[in-house]
């Protein structure tokens, strides 16, 4: 048989449960938390590599940069319209 006194049906019971929840939520990290944060920050800063800017660590930006490099570095022969190759104008005849 369940005990109806503990059911949070009434405001009082609900409030009591909320107080219990709040009391339970009080906590703190283990001692020397700052030292661990500091160690993590130092590790992240050293592994990140100082020679690359922060945005370069994001793969999406790197991929975009790669695509941009490909787009501007090629000679674009394949993309050139065929007329460019066929419209060869013969040089004017040299004056005699």
């Amino acid at each position, binding site marked *: *048989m*369940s*005990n*109806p*006194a*503990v*059911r*949070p*049906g009434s405001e009082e019971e*609900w409030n009591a*449960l*909320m107080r*219990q*929840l*709040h009391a*339970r*939520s*009080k*906590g*703190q*990290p*283990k001692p020397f*938390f*700052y030292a*661990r*944060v500091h160690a*993590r*920050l*130092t590790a*992240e*800063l*050293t592994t990140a590599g*100082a020679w690359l800017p922060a945005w370069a660590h994001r793969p999406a930006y790197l991929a975009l940069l790669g695509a941009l490099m490909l787009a501007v570095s090629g000679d674009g022969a394949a993309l050139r319209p065929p007329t460019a190759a066929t419209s060869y104008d013969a040089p004017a005849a040299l004056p005699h």
Partner: protein
Amino acid sequence: MAFSLPLISTLAPPSYLSGSAAAGDAELVAHLQQGSEAAFRTLVARYQDRVYTTAFSLLRSAEEAEDVAQEVFVEVYQTVARFRGEASLSTWLYRLATSRALQHRRRLKAKKRFAYFTSLLGFDNQVLHEPPDHAHPLALLEGEQQLRLLLNHIDRLPSQQQVAFTLRHEQELSYEEIAAVLDTTVSAVESLLFRARQTLRRHLQSPSRHV
């Protein structure tokens, strides 16, 4: 000290150590943006409990909460230069703590699901999934077990409701502060809390039907 920003040494104690919270926080941010390690240490000391308990409320694991709290402070250090003060420092920290904790929980759930499938496929002999809880609601006793039941149902609330409920009942934030953290209106927070309480009370009352 491996911090990238130059450290500032001051002879007099900085005023963010005293004075009102808002003014103190504004000055603390200014010192952080200049790369002061003392300011960072003060920030961590001032907010570590709030950040940790917020993460703990959403994760219910001391190790995970510690991990999230560390992540939050590392992110603060790395991005404080871009902090423009549109929100208060505490709002920003609560926002980071809740979003990081929810991200963490999603990753944990995905990992748990993967472990469950691998255990089903028999890749190893360990039972990695949590066995289902067959305890009948009648078996739940008062006090601690009632609270445990409540915590179980809080974990099943939709994310926004869970964050609002946690910030209200565990961190005791005002409706305005919760609205700022969730970047929404006070009436939206009221609605989130109303729905969360309704769901929780319904679940906690339901065992009486079996009596």
